């Protein structure tokens, strides 16, 4: 892919992101931040590629460290967001149960 094609993804994604995120209510800003944070762990893909196929020991070592860090970000991020949203859901359920 060319640089311009990549740039196209970047610009379009920025607009999509803006449109969606401005619609998210204040109530959900913490889960949004934590969920978005988990998505930024997508860099794990890059970590997997360099850790798996690194041509030198140094590159492989760096890749390993990157895999550990990105996995912490992904797994921890989604779990924390999930437990946060569970609390929102339980208060909602209770209200409807009253």
């Amino acid at each position: 892919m060319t640089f311009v094609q990549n740039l196209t993804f970047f610009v379009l994604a920025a607009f999509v992101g803006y449109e969606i995120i401005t619609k998210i209510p204040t109530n959900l800003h913490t889960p949004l931040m934590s969920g978005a944070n988990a998505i930024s762990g997508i860099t794990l893909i890059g970590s997997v590629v360099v850790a798996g196929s690194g041509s030198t020991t140094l590159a492989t070592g760096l890749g390993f460290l990157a895999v550990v860090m990105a996995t912490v970000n992904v797994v921890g991020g989604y779990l924390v967001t999930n437990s946060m949203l569970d609390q929102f859901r339980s208060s909602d359920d209770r209200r409807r149960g009253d």
Partner: protein
Amino acid sequence: MAAILGGLSASALAFVYLIAGILFIQGLRDMTHPRTAPRGNLISAGGMALAVGITVLVTDILSPVLLFAGLLVGAAIGVWLAVTVETTEMPQLVGLFNGFGGGASALVAGAELIDMFGTGAFQVGVTSTAALAGIIGSVTFWGSLVAAGKLHGVVDDSAVRYSGEQAVKALFLVLSVLAGLHLIVRPNLLGAVPLAGWVPSYWVLVAAASILGVLLVIPIGGADMPVVIALLNSYSGLAAATTGFVLDNSVLIIAGTLVGASGLILTVIMCESMNRSLANVFFGGIGEASESGEEMEDIYEGNITTTSPEEVEMTLDVADRVVIVPGYGMAVAQAQHAVAELAELLEKEGVDVEFGIHPVAGRMPGHMNVLLAEADVPYEKLRDLEEINPTFSQTDVVIVIGANDVVNPSANTADSGPIAGMPVLNVGEARTVIVNKRSLSPGFSGVPNPLFAQDNTNMLFGDGKETMQELVNIYKENH
């Protein structure tokens, strides 16, 4: 180990990445309502599993043991941190995770450079985006660690300032940019002298950017952390997106950009809520203009009315409408459950109870909302600043718990000072204001609060949790 799906064509892989990208977007779309948000998080996690899974399957893995060890170790640490965290520690945990994402991006860019220079190939597109990923990723990693440290109380959370501060920061920024330029330009200028295999200028860049990350966050005080956390969130997304440019990977670019946009929007919202520019948060230095203790005593002298839980209970007895305004103090005292119980008791007696939430109350965006949700307060009861402010004049009792600067009326009248012009909750318009605080000490801004001296304000001194629990018990006895 050869790739399990090595035969998969590049366009098929790109298609799977596209699906993952769509899942991320749909996941965020579901975040627009509390009812669909949990599903959104699952969809987003599914997109992540798909993207990572397919990558593991199509990559020629030279050292599978190392890779899976990395995944296992990371997952174990992530689960352990997520399961053991207390709600009050949530801001620093989110900050910490954030830093890890940024750090990983910087390392990936470095490893990719080593690979590229090792094979003798050279592309300006790769080196320039790698330089960007390195700077943003390193700043994110160290900045987040310092921010998390401040929130956790292991790093001094006051605004640490020194002379020549801006010059020192500029120096390290210039240093990292120069190292980046060197990385991009050198092979062209001095083609005969190949860069060493481990790409030293990249690590100079990482070192300079790391120091810059620390220096950027150290001078920022605890109360500005919502802005910092949101901005670092944005950076970690941008770091992932630039890594996507380095690796020529569409899903990295899409997902990273979504996060970048999200963090930036939250940052702007937080700044607007404080009537401050981003530059002011980073370079302005709140707290410098704090007023002297004598002036504070002048304002409070003889004008402070104190009250007791018994009296507050009587006041609540004749109230039709009560608004509760929580602040960071509620989080510190872990008073949210007692507060929620009080609200529920009042509701049962037919009192109209709402919560007024200032956008920057707490230490991360939406901090109060999460704490109150944990205590099972229905989200319909939570009102933001624009919604709640017009209602204070028809409110009988406002209970302020652990909030100070966000209810300071001098923000509306002062021409200068740290909080001048900041939109605040105008609680003073209510008939009676009960302020629960441990003492008259000023809020983070260091500015005295004339609200405490107002005729209709009664100070209820004491620990938030204990005082609210006492109030709940007295209320129960009498109803």
